[in-house]
Structure formats: structure tokens, C-alpha cells
């Protein structure tokens, strides 16, 4: 399938961290804007100025952080907020498995670099041979972490100056972003099948489960690839 200009195939082993930064730059713009809106929401939810920024550096996962801020802001319970966020981040279990052989060095270094995995950096780092490119993942992850955290700082400190993110259509930017990342992934029949199965599992579960579960369950769709010999 044809790929957007940003995702031209790269030769494995020939990439640098800067390639990852470059590939993630357009997403960085969206991450910055999304970070601002998280900061604004967190401020409105009485999370203070420091906690949201600490959360952006440590948790570094947009939808889970939004869940915590909106549940606490709406007066929902602490346990509800924590459980919702963890469910939303469970997908990083299977994602981490797929990235397991990517990192190098002692255990603490692998654990630390694994923190740079987010949906977008992981998607950018996919190589044509099915492995992950460590340089692309780290470069993209670092840029997104900086943009996301900077946005959060701006949102918590200057939130009053920012328009409502929904009126800017920001919530529509992310499904389109994931569609673009998916587009560059679907390059043969078995990957197309995995995508269709993943979407179908998510659609089937959405009416019955809270947010997060449909996405984790959709990771089972990767099993359609197990039939194909490596």
C-alpha cells in the first residue's frame, strides 16, 4: 500500500536518533497542543501546578492522564481514577513485549528507555522487517516527551489564555493521526487482516466495557499473524 511521505521506508541499521525526532515532528505539534489541553483540564480539576507536570514526565500517556484529571475533577473516587488509568495503559504490556528485544544494555537502562514507548513512537519505529528500530523509537519518544511536558506546563500556568481544545477539533486530530500511522503499517494481506480484526474486537467490546479494555483485547488480533511462518 502507498505510504504518506513521512513514512518512506528506511534502511534498517542506518537510522539515527535525529531521524526519529524528524519523523515525530508533526506528531510533536499535536502532542504539544494535547499537552496544553491536559494542563488546562488538570488545573480545572484542582490538581495544582506541579502534579500534572510530574505526571506528564512519569506516566507519559495522554489518555490515561486525561482519565485521571476528568474523574478527579468530576468528584469521582481515587480508586476509580487509578483503575481507569491503569486499564487505559494495559496495552503497553503487549506493546512492551513486541519491543522487548529492541533495547540494549543493563536492566535499568532497558527499563528506562522502555519509558519512551508511547503509541506514536512505537508506530514510527516499526521497520519493514517487522522489528523495531531503537534509534527511531528513542528519538521520537524523547521529542514527544518534551512536547507533551512543555504543553502541560503551558496549560497549567497559562491555561486561561487557551481556547477549549474541543472547539479547536483537537480530539479529531488523534484518530486521524492513528489512521495515518496504521496506513503505513498495512502493507500486506495478513497485516490488513490484523487491522480489521483489531478494529472489530474493539468495536464489539466498546458497548460493554470501560475505556481501555477494547484496546488491550484488540491486541489478540495479532494472532492472525502467527499462522504465517516468519
Amino acid at each position, binding site marked *: 500500500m502507498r505510504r*504518506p*511521505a*513521512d*513514512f518512506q521506508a528506511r534502511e534498517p541499521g542506518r537510522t539515527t536518533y535525529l531521524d526519529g525526532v524528524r519523523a515525530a515532528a*508533526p506528531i510533536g505539534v499535536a502532542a504539544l497542543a494535547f499537552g496544553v489541553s491536559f494542563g488546562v483540564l488538570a488545573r480545572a480539576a484542582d*490538581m495544582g501546578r506541579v*502534579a500534572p507536570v510530574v*505526571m506528564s514526565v*512519569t*506516566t507519559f500517556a495522554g489518555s*490515561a492522564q486525561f482519565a*485521571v484529571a*476528568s474523574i478527579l475533577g468530576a468528584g469521582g473516587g*481515587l480508586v476509580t481514577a*487509578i483503575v481507569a*488509568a491503569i486499564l487505559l*495503559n494495559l496495552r503497553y504490556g*503487549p*506493546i*512492551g513485549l*513486541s519491543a522487548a*528485544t529492541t*533495547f540494549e544494555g543493563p536492566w535499568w537502562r532497558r*527499563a528506562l*528507555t*522502555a*519509558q519512551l*514507548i508511547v*503509541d506514536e513512537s512505537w508506530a514510527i519505529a516499526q521497520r519493514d522487517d*517487522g522489528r523495531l528500530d531503537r534509534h527511531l523509537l528513542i528519538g521520537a519518544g524523547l521529542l514527544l516527551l518534551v512536547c507533551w511536558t512543555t504543553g502541560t506546563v503551558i496549560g497549567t500556568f497559562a491555561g486561561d489564555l487557551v481556547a477549549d481544545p474541543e*472547539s479547536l*477539533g483537537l*480530539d*479529531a*486530530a488523534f*484518530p*486521524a*493521526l*492513528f489512521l*495515518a500511522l*496504521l496506513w503505513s503499517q498495512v502493507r500486506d494481506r*495478513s*497485516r490488513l487482516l*490484523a*487491522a480489521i480484526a*483489531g*478494529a472489530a474486537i*474493539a*468495536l464489539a467490546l*466498546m*458497548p460493554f466495557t470501560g475505556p481501555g479494555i477494547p*484496546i488491550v483485547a*484488540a*491486541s489478540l488480533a*495479532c*494472532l*492472525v*499473524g502467527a499462522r504465517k*511462518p*516468519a
Partner: protein
Amino acid sequence: MSAVWISVIVVGLATMAIKAAGPLLLARRTPPPRAQAALEHLAPALLAALVVTQALGGDNGGFTIDARLAGLAAGAVALLLRAPLLVVITAAAVTAALVRLVA
């Protein structure tokens, strides 16, 4: 300790542990070929699920049809025209914003 800080610390530690689990447990052990082949199909499966949940998901589960869908359609058109990623994202956001402005 306040509820805010407890949630920041617990969610932060849990997320870090989830992200690090694979790289720590599987440390440099290459998975068997069939498992590796399956993991190579994880990206399309999860990204497709993310498109669906982000475009149609409601705040408390279930479906919500709103301007996001128009934005996604605009993004898809931009993709078909081979637009760069930033144009795809912007087309989706601007379209959704315009739909909300009119509606």
C-alpha cells in the same frame, strides 16, 4: 497525602512497570518464530483499535457519534491524496472544528 498526589504516584509507577515489563522479562531472548510473527502484527491490530476507540469512544464507554467522525473522514481524504502527516492531522482538526462551529 492528597488524592491528586496518590493518583499521580500510583498511576506513574504502574505505567512505568507495565512499559518496562516486556523488555525486562524477555531480555534479549528472541521469541519463537510464530510468536515473533504474531508480534509483528501487533501494530496494525492496535492502531486500528485506537482509530476506532478515539473516533467513536464516549467519555464513559460506549459510542458517541460527533464531529470527530467528520474530522477522521477529512484526514482519510488527505491520506488518499498522499498529504504529509501534519496536513492529515490539521485537516481532521480543522474539519471537526468547522462542523462544531456550524452545528
